[in-house]
């Protein structure tokens, strides 16, 4: 049961560490790479607080071994804002629309929404609700989360149009 040399790209940078094969991706990120943005909520694959992006898809990092992500390209909430610290449109929208109360689910919500808006840049309310159905929030009742994601989609579309 020797340790493995695990390498991946995390938030655009090469990362590596020695870890036991049984190390879950969430523990690898939080404990080996000190990226404590992704949270451990239910630890059973239901709540989505540990959601990260792996090779272009949202996954629950509490139900993936770091060894499975060996060689993968991973994005966590720490990689969503611009390198200069400017907030992403989703982060701004969550603040503007009160898309969080306690904030525990927020890293997973925003990381999931970030991928959702790449899969579907102009989702309907139903599509947003289905898209975040793997992320639980126990405070907001989801209304403001859905509003925030919708507002961010509009903002991103406007910015894209302006750029063209």
């Amino acid at each position, binding site marked *: 049961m020797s340790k493995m040399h695990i390498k991946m790209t995390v938030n655009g940078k090469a990362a590596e560490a020695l870890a036991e094969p049984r190390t879950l991706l969430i523990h690898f990120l939080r404990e080996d790479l000190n990226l404590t943005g992704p949270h451990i909520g239910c630890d059973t694959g239901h709540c989505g607080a540990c959601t990260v992006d792996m090779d272009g898809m949202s*996954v629950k990092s509490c*139900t*993936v071994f770091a060894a499975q992500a060996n060689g993968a390209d991973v994005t966590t909430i720490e990689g969503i804002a611009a390198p200069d610290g400017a907030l992403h449109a989703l982060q701004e929208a969550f603040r503007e629309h009160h898309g969080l109360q306690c904030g525990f689910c927020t890293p997973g919500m925003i990381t999931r929404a970030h991928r959702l808006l790449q899969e579907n840049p102009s989702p309907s309310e139903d599509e947003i609700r289905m898209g975040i*159905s*793997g992320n639980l929030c126990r405070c907001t009742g989801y209304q403001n989360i859905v509003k925030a994601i919708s507002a961010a989609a509009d903002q991103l579309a406007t910015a894209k149009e302006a750029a063209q």
Partner: protein
Amino acid sequence: MIPGAFDYHRPSSIDEAVKLLADLGDEARVLAGGHSLIPMMKLRMALPENLIDLQDIAELKGISEDGGTITIGAMTRQAEIIASAVLAEHCPILPETALQIADPQVRNLGTIGGNVANGDPGNDMPALMQALDAAYLIAGPGGNREVAARGFYDAAFFTALADGEVLTAIRFAAPPAGHGYAYEKQKRKIGDYATAAAAVILTMSGGRCESAEIALTNVGDTPLYAEEAGKALAGTDLNADAVKAAVEAAKAITRPAADGRGPVDFRTSVTGVMVRNAIERAAARAA
């Protein structure tokens, strides 16, 4: 929750995976999407000493249609089934069912092979495979073999898959053009297993039902192929009596557990509602 320790292997071919399983012996398990096995390992209800991750085996992936036969590699993920143009055209009940499994993140990693081979009666694909009369293609130390989905499930988590064997693909004849279909699932919340669910595939001709296949999810310790329920519809114009006979035939074979999803009577009753709704929706879709 920390799983027990194991050694990790990532073979790049089916032959290599089968050889690893043979060499490593009883305490080796294959890892597909991991969304059934990893939770069990975190609870220490599964303690494999070796995990053989199948993710790099290209020959286990992909969806193809050839002359009316559909083949789906075991490592094809639920999200890929939902997005498949081949399945949207030839077998839309598959994406319809996959969309009712868990949530987007789980569907990104969960595979059809894991879903059907694990033997969990809560999984949705096994009943659908029975309705489609699918065959499971299996590789093992003694070569390759096929087992019909209708004969694969012995009891909860006990299947015809022997130690040392790997499910490699699923193969079935696409239902005829114009078939009607529906997968109806009642669940308490997103991510839950079914209280009861029913798959219905039927063909109509001139207002009469030519054939009907019905199978049930999570109302027994295996998926249940409701052969008599299908027969009750075949040859009829799907009148109220025929539908009632099919519903009763399906309810008659259920053996649900009483659990948080409800007592036995309730789950049996929900089975009837799911079968009825699925028949009605399938009939409305049939050309």
